[in-house]
């Protein structure tokens, strides 16, 4: 197989997603947090809240980069830590500054992920006014959510998050802003219990993330190299329920992405599918970094010597790690390149491929899980197609030694 160097592969990946670490602390202390609890301590040297000077410099760099590259639309993701800790004055100024500097030539789209604990009516009013789309992190019912999502005193966050979700769902003005809930899979939880809760609450979109880990720091319940598929089994239980209900008023992103990729459609998330993605991080001190989930690979792993104070956005391509992260779907190990499922899994999430010995030159630590899940879903989707259409598309199930009856 021909090799693709990080430079070649990323040279055509435009940067369009700017993840602003507007805070570098969180009021929660989730056990699985890839920012603060997976070995990276660099946040301790970061400003707790992004200074105004960093905001202004970053926006000016984005304006210049967009102008030079012909980019007409950028996604600005307000992220943390917990971004709401930055306060409403910060948010208002940030958005006003970005709009005034970028528009009309570049359309900024504002997104935010919050843990929801601080979200109240005044925040909803502001998010509506500033047109900021947002998602809320929740792992499921109280006992499941609070197993991991606790504050620094060990107190569960469910009650506070649930209040926020109830408030959001009762406010029709933010219907188009609320993207749904983001959940991290807990193997001890019953996925159907979570599904029932989300249906009951009227949540319209959810995603279930695999806990971050890799070969030297494996995710909970997974032994690196093992052929056990506990995460696939968990997700398949959820998929069976969701697919058989056949009610698209609850979107489940991971399943939609897999089905879309089976049909060759190019839209998806950075944890599935091939090709590049255009995301970089602006840390709270202005450092330009690759995507933050690579922090699970080690302390200071994502650090670069690039800063918006004196570096252009295009300088990001100088960093090998940023080039790799931009081209993650194209940078596959030999085994993945030969795998018939690669068009869907894309080699899996970049941090999940990491080992100390081989770097990213491995299949995902979730390889067996991804393969089993994807093969299962493909089979069910093919089965659901009319026979004539199956023949026209020439699509059929894949026989695999990891595919078992669910």
């Amino acid at each position, binding site marked *: 197989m021909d090799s693709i160097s990080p430079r070649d592969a990323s040279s055509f990946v435009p940067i369009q997603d700017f993840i602003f670490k507007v805070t570098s602390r969180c009021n929660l202390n989730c056990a699985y947090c890839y920012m603060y609890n997976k070995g990276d301590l660099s946040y301790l040297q970061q400003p707790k809240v992004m200074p105004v000077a960093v905001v202004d410099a970053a926006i000016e760099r984005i304006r210049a980069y967009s102008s030079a590259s012909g980019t007409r639309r950028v996604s600005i993701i307000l992220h943390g830590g917990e971004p709401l800790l930055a306060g409403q004055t910060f948010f208002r100024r940030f958005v006003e500054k970005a709009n005034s500097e970028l528009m009309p030539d570049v359309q900024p789209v504002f997104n935010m992920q919050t843990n929801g604990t601080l979200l109240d009516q005044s925040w909803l009013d502001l998010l509506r006014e500033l047109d900021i789309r947002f998602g809320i992190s929740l792992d499921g019912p109280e006992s499941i959510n609070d197993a991991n999502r606790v504050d620094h005193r060990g107190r569960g966050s469910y009650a506070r998050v649930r209040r926020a979700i109830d408030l959001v769902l009762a406010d029709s003005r933010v219907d188009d802003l609320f993207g749904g809930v983001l959940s991290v899979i807990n193997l001890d939880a019953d996925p159907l219990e979570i599904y029932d809760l989300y249906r009951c609450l009227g949540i319209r979109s959810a*995603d279930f993330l695999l806990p971050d880990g890799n070969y030297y720091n494996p995710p909970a319940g997974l032994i690196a190299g093992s052929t056990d598929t506990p995460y696939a089994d968990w997700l398949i239980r959820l998929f069976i329920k969701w697919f058989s209900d056949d009610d*698209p008023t609850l979107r489940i992103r991971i399943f939609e992405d897999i089905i879309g990729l089976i049909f060759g459609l190019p839209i998806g998330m950075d944890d599935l599918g091939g090709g*590049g993605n255009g995301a970089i991080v602006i840390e709270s001190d202005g450092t330009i970094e690759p*995507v933050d989930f690579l922090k699970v690979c080690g302390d200071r792993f994502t650090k670069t010597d690039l800063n918006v104070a004196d570096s252009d956005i295009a300088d990001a391509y100088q960093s090998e790690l940023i080039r790799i992260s931009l081209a993650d779907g194209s940078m596959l190990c030999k085994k993945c390149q030969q795998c018939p499922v690669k068009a869907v899994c894309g080699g899996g999430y970049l941090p999940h491929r990491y080992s100390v010995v081989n770097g990213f030159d491995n299949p995902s630590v979730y390889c067996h899980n991804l393969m089993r899940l994807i093969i299962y879903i493909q089979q069910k989707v093919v089965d659901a197609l009319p026979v004539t259409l199956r023949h026209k598309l020439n699509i059929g199930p894949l026989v695999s030694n990891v595919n078992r009856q669910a």
Partner: protein
Amino acid sequence: VANVSNGDSDSNQEQQTVGWDSGTKFTVDLREIELTAEERADISSAIIDVILERTRIEAEVIDGSWRKYSKYIS
């Protein structure tokens, strides 16, 4: 640290042997195979139908491949 050799791996991870159901494809590109309205109507799964429609519209709007940062949902 960021070692990627793209194909030079001699990974010690267990190799998986995957057998194909020969003669059929695992994925298809619906951007290249246009479905008729009748064929779309024959898809009885509301979920599949909605995904196809939604993803096509998004693809047209975005005009190309787009993989988004997965640590947020919107």
